């Protein structure tokens, strides 16, 4: 044990002085070179790193510190058919996930995920993850929306936090075998002729821009839910990985599928876990009625999230909401009793208390649908290698896993607890495949000056101008139009309106003003870069939704209320055109065992 702290370079921590590999100096300055660069330090990124550290020279670039990644905000559980409580089976998990995805999930990928789930949970348990226990001292499991058995393994209502910190702890065990560049912001993906060569990233503390050359790059950079007004997403979830990919000339898949979680804390959007309903909580409308019996009598409050969110929105739209403006519904936990609430749902209890001043033991909690999860993202094969085009050709040396990716295991609607599972399963798979890929790959040369100049030019455009447009109103208007015109319910005319607004905001953004001219810790500039990302992917959400003339999973068109398998049983792929515009193409869904059928709960 070392009793003297050894600090690495500011903004990165080297966990042991004996480590090697970091920061090789080139003639032009510091050119960082690693075998593998992972962007993002949530569950997928950390799990991949664990597979690679010790075998290859691996680095993580993260815009926050690893323990602050948004995986930690997941609350209710992580799915696996352990059958600790009942007669659950992997087969049932697969079917529930396929049905939950409204048949847009690729069934081969779903099989991989569900088959690997029990092993994944046991592995995390062995790494020290604290799981809540049954009376038989096994991992306890609870009910969750869309799952037909008690399948969600959990640590009270802090499951993501428990898993994330377990993997964060492991980074300390890896010592110098892993280098973490914390608070470095990835600004550009370098891909030439279908080969990935590295990334450009900025040290937030100093503003220093550096090229990271790598044989393999893995994006595990999270979702894009921040462009909605009511959202459970962290401020950091601005689709940076997706947009870097898109700008490198690669497609994004199924971007129109954004999940709205039924129980966001009213006006804040903060997540109140589905575990609240899994433990027996009710949803009530303004008249005090358990309205879910009208929409999903078989599953009630534990129908999948898309259905529950739509039911809430219908109640609100039809005037049966609660509160003075009738614009929310109520999550009622009172009948669970104080002891159970405090034991099983302590975080929810405190969130309601601290943010709304509501005591969930004595009063129902105001909730509304909140943008929560990005089903769409960077398309990959089942080993997480990124796909180049609609034929399925692959990009050499580029992988993606977790929420930023679109394998696709969630299709049109993710089931709760499947996202933590996906991040762990596919993070590991990516790691294993990268180990293979990197052993044959060669480092390629990068025109460092050109790459940095490209990023600098983009930044200079927004920092060194006398532009007048203010940043905040653009973002505010974007979030507003996305929530109210491209949200739980959508229609052709609303989407057209949203599209027009987004393009107008993109135009205004060209003249955005950044007041902070400093290099060090310039969060003003970061916000501007992030807003640029939000504006670009929001257009793809809207465009994909406009084109998709059907209702499937989280994408609900009031003008096309039914699913249309004949025309739309396919994945949307959005490509960036040379002029900055986009083009939509489609590729088929993988169906192995379950033919699409009517989705009823």
């Amino acid at each position, binding site marked *: *044990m070392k009793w003297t702290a050894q600090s690495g370079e500011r903004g990165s921590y080297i966990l042991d002085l004996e480590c090697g590999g970091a920061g090789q100096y080139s003639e032009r300055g510091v050119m960082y070179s690693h075998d593998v660069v992972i962007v993002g330090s949530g569950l997928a990124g950390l799990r991949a790193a664990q597979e690679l550290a010790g075998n290859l020279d691996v680095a993580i670039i993260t815009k926050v510190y690893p323990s602050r990644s948004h995986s930690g905000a997941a609350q209710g559980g992580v799915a696996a058919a352990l059958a600790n409580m009942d007669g659950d089976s992997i087969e049932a998990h697969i079917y529930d996930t396929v049905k939950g995805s409204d048949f847009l999930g690729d069934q081969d990928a779903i099989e991989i995920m569900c088959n690997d789930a029990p092993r994944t949970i046991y592995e995390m348990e062995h790494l020290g993850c604290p799981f809540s226990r049954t*009376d038989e001292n096994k991992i306890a499991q609870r009910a969750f929306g869309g799952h037909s058995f008690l399948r969600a393994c959990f640590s009270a209502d802090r499951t993501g936090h428990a898993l994330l910190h377990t993997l964060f702890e492991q980074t300390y065990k890896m010592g110098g075998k892993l280098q973490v560049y914390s608070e470095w912001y990835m600004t550009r993906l370098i891909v030439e002729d279908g080969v990935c060569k590295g990334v450009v990233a900025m040290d937030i503390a100093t503003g220093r821009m550096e090229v990271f050359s790598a044989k393999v790059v893995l994006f595990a950079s999270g979702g894009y839910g921040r462009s909605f007004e009511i959202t459970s997403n962290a401020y950091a979830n601005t689709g940076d990985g997706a947009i870097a990919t898109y700008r490198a000339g690669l497609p994004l898949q199924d971007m129109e599928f954004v999940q709205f979680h039924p129980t966001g804390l009213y006006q804040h959007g903060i997540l109140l876990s589905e575990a609240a309903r899994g433990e027996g909580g009710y949803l009530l409308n303004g008249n005090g009625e358990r309205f879910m019996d009208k929409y999903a009598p078989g599953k009630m409050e534990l129908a999948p999230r898309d259905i529950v969110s739509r039911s809430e929105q219908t109640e609100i739209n039809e005037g049966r909401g609660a509160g003075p403006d009738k614009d929310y519904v109520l999550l009622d936990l009172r009948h669970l009793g104080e002891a159970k609430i405090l034991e099983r749902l*302590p975080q929810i209890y405190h969130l309601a208390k601290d943010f709304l001043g509501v005591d969930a033991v004595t009063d129902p909690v105001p909730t509304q649908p909140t943008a929560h999860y990005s089903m769409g993202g960077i398309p990959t094969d089942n080993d997480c290698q990124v796909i180049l085009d609609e034929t399925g050709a692959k990009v050499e040396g580029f992988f993606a896993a977790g929420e930023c990716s679109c394998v696709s295991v969630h299709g049109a609607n993710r089931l709760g607890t499947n996202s933590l599972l996906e991040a762990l399963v596919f993070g590991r798979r990516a790691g294993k495949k990268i180990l293979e890929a990197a052993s044959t790959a060669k480092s390629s040369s990068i025109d460092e000056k050109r790459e940095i100049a490209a990023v600098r030019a983009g930044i200079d455009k927004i920092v060194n101008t006398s532009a007048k447009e203010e940043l905040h109103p653009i973002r505010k208007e974007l979030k507003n139009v996305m929530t109210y015109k491209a949200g739980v319910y959508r229609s052709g005319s609303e989407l057209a309106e949203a599209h027009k607004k987004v393009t107008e905001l993109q135009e205004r953004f060209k003249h955005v003003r950044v007041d902070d001219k400093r290099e060090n810790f310039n969060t003003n500039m970061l916000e501007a870069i992030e807003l640029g990302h939000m504006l670009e992917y929001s257009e793809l959400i809207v465009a994909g939704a406009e084109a998709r003339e059907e209702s499937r999973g989280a994408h609900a068109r009031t003008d096309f209320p039914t699913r249309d398998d004949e025309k739309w049983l396919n994945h949307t792929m959005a490509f960036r055109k040379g002029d900055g515009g986009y083009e939509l193409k489609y590729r088929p869904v993988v169906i192995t065992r379950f033919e699409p059928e009517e989705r009823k709960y």
Partner: protein
Amino acid sequence: MSNGEVTFIIERFDPEKDTAPYPQEYKVILEPGQTLLNCLNNIKWTQDQTLAYRYSCGSAICGSCAMRINGKAVLACKTQVSDCVKDGVIRLAPIGNTKVVRDLVVDLEPFWNALKRVRPYLTPDSQDAPEKEREQTAEEFSKIDPSTTCIMCGACYSDCNVLEVDNQFLGPVALAKAHRFIFDSRDGGGHQRLTEISETNGIWDCTHCGECTTRCPTETKPLSRIEEIKVKAMAEGHHGNAGARHVLGFRETVGRRGLLDENYLPLRTVGFFNIPGLLSIMPVGLRMMWRGKNPPMIPHYVDKVGEVNNIFARFEEFRK
């Protein structure tokens, strides 16, 4: 809830251009239910884009936004501003025991590095392939439940009085992290962990001021965890260190005389045969004598020492 105008006085500092921190005032119209983070965002987005601070999840789980409000560390996203206004004013500053990077942003490297010193990962008994979960009782889980809620926000680290005078102290975050493994039924390294954590800069350097627990925005409550480690370390015989000897010496002199023997205690703490240690405390002793502040050489006794010992006896019974 008090509505109306509030003056935020925020400590600004950019080490690259300022020679010293300076206060800057912003006026904000407070709306009901606004959190500190809401207000800061409001200031940044509508008044002064150059203000620097960290934030991410906005829901009290990522731990990014710890800062000092009116001198006390809090998590900005879960703090209701109306609870903190004093005479229409709120004072904001970066967290303590750290170096400022810019405005409310501080250098956290020493904070993360302190964790290394407690080997913050499970060291299981066996390396069996995980074919099933290991058993753990609900009671065993409940022992680590509080310390595993830590979000590493650094609020306790900021206001720790020991860290302020000794930056080699492990500090409340690392100690709470150590607790999480010492009390985990699945960890095999407990004995070694307790030995190490009982040494200088570990549990016994904590002065029980309780600031960490008061500031903690989660159920971690570091002071309680530190106390639990101390009790376990003593119970399991980790007596070969200054902290434990101090505790034992305390118990011995009070048991013997009903009063503290302040001549005996330092010798007992350092160790009677620890010549370098004894030499190191000698100058203090000599200075005290010089100033006439040394305790009486002939120790006093209380009248009824037996009753003091009855208290100890009853406590032992209670503990059983």
